[in-house]
């Protein structure tokens, strides 16, 4: 009560004093600092991302073009028999025709060096042409074939010309010959379609991602076909029908645990159960997809449950009110309304699965396979494991190809995440 007798002024804050102004300045400074911290964090994250992309693009862009030679090949009937084109000696066809460009190279070791300028894929390419059109036998054909990896890297500047000869893949006289071809205007660097339309190869200039892309596609297909229906069915039961109690709690905790299990463990499980016990063929997209579906299943269940939960109860009541049975409430009303959310979660789960490497290594999807798989039961690689294989390869050409493969994988991932964002924005409902 004594406070009441004191003049009211003493209890009041003085908003116009210097101290008050100082306190305000301090508070505003703290506000600004918090903003700056946030900006700095974002800036740092962006810088790291830019560094990653700059480094990937910096090394990867070279893989998108390929140094190629254009010259005329005489398909000598002596080497190629019309009735057995496939068995024809195209190596000699290419070698003889190539040597016509350098008539003064005569000694066998020199000739060998000269021929080694070209990729061993050159003869296969000519064979393909002749197989397509047998009339070419006995005629001159203008072909564009890849150079060997060393020459390709030399032309792209990856192999410097000024290091001692012994430390280069390309020796001095090869450089002279190559420069002659360059002067003749026979060397070009067209877009490297091989990267997308060929499967793996030991020779970088012939290696491509087609096998890995098809393998990843099949593995994701299997993964989707397994985890999408299973995940939705499980989520519907847990969310709409399961009696809430100790069992549903245990289930829920375990589904969340499943989402947190390291992927390498799922790979081991796949190896032990799917391959060893059930005897499914190793290295196949079937097993890969099954293992990946173990990983996406919890993601889809969690996303689906969240989407089902987000459907307002008024819609359920409306349906129950006109006498819909529980399955009709779910299938006619709740599930369609939850679908955009489910799709978004599924795509994000699929994107995770696409980038997953460890489990695929354990089930042997890092095999060296030179043709795209024809189905889910054929051995295949996947995009991330292809990156793993190439990163491990000693040839210089694989350095840029590894970066290029990473860019392709990131491209797919960005597309999938973009689709998820699009679906979310397009079909988002407000009640």
């Amino acid at each position: 009560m004594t406070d009441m007798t004191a003049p009211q002024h003493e209890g009041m804050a003085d908003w116009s004093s210097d101290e008050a102004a100082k306190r305000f300045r301090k508070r505003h400074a703290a506000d600004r600092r918090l903003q700056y911290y946030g900006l700095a964090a974002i800036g740092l994250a962006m810088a790291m991302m830019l560094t990653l992309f700059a480094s990937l693009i910096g090394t990867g862009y070279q893989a998108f073009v390929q140094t190629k030679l254009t010259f005329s090949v005489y398909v000598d009937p002596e080497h190629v028999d019309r009735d057995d084109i496939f068995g024809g000696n195209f190596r000699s066809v290419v070698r003889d025709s190539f040597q016509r460009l350098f008539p003064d190279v005569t000694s066998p070791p020199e000739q060998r060096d000269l021929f080694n300028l070209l990729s061993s894929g050159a003869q296969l390419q000519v064979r393909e042409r002749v197989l397509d059109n047998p009339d070419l036998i006995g005629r001159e054909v203008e072909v564009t074939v890849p150079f060997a990896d060393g020459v390709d890297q030399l032309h792209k500047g990856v192999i410097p010309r000024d290091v001692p000869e012994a430390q280069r893949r390309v020796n001095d006289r090869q450089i002279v010959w190559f420069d002659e071809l360059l002067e003749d205007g026979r060397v070009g660097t067209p877009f490297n379609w091989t990267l997308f339309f060929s499967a793996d190869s030991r020779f970088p200039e012939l290696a491509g991602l087609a096998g890995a892309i098809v393998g990843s596609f099949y593995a994701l297909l299997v993964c989707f076909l397994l985890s999408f229906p299973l995940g939705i069915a499980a989520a519907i039961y847990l969310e709409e029908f399961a009696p809430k109690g100790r069992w549903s709690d245990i289930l829920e905790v375990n589904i969340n645990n499943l989402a947190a299990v390291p992927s390498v463990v799922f790979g081991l499980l796949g190896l032990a159960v799917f391959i060893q016990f059930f005897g499914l063929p190793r290295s196949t997209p079937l097993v890969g997809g099954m293992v990946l579906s173990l990983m996406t299943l919890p993601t889809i269940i969690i996303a689906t449950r969240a989407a089902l939960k987000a459907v307002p109860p008024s819609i359920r009541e409306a349906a129950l009110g006109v006498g819909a049975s529980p399955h009709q409430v779910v299938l006619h009303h709740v599930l369609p309304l939850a679908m955009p959310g489910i799709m978004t979660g599924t795509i994000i789960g699929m994107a995770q699965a696409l980038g997953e490497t460890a489990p695929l290594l354990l089930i042997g999807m890092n095999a060296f396979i030179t043709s795209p798989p024809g189905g889910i039961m054929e051995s295949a690689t996947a995009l991330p494991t292809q990156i793993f294989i190439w990163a491990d390869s000693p040839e210089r050409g694989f350095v840029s190809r590894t970066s290029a493969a990473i860019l392709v994988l990131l491209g797919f991932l960005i597309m999938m995440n973009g689709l998820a964002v699009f679906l979310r924005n397009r079909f988002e409902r407000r009640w």
Partner: protein
Amino acid sequence: MDVQVAEAGTEQKARTKVSARDVDVFYGDKQALFGVNIDIPEHQVTAMIGPSGCGKSTFLRCINRMNDTVDGASVRGLIAIDGQDIYDGRIDVVQLRARVGMVFQKPNPFPKSIFDNIAYGPRIHGTFGHKDELEGIVQTSLERAGLWNEVKDRLSEPGTGLSGGQQQRLCIARAVAVSPEVILMDEPCSALDPIATARVEELIDELREHYTIVIVTHNMQQAARVSQKTAFFHLGILVEYEATEQIFTNPRDERTQGYITGRYG
């Protein structure tokens, strides 16, 4: 006074549609209703009033067993429609909800076309033979809900695009389309503006010809305007159940009087 006597006379003749005997409702350990006894007459509007949390909505939701969907809810006692116990194990809840339609507090049309909103009930119950017949049901239902003239040219547009009052009448039409015997309305006008409210109230009066209507309302004037009988609930107890004029002009219980005169609620 003669008029009142005449009305009281018809009331006595009215057949009982829904009857409740000693109904207790529990949500888990909490008891929400205590020994409710009531006889709701056919082809009349029965209003349930009372302060928030008094159990009026709980009772309403017992009549079509909507409380079954609430975890931990249990009902004791007897509720019968046309003398048949609706909590009997042999009763099909889906069929019961077809016989007892419901309109909710917030208009909740399906995010589908106006036509599909009305047609949904008949479709799931298979109560029509031919597509033309379904169109007939949709038209009749919309007419009964007084919405036909407003929407007949845009039946394929989404029901969620209508105004709040129209949406609520759409929900009434949706309930009507299943040809129920009883329509339960849980504060159907509380989310509507006064003009839309007046329109729905008129509609309720018209619907009484075909259906038995039970309406829960917070609005005492509304109860007085639309209902023939009024039940006053307080703290889970049915305090008083009388002809509406009786409740509003001469309540017997002082709690009823207190609520009606605005002393609490």
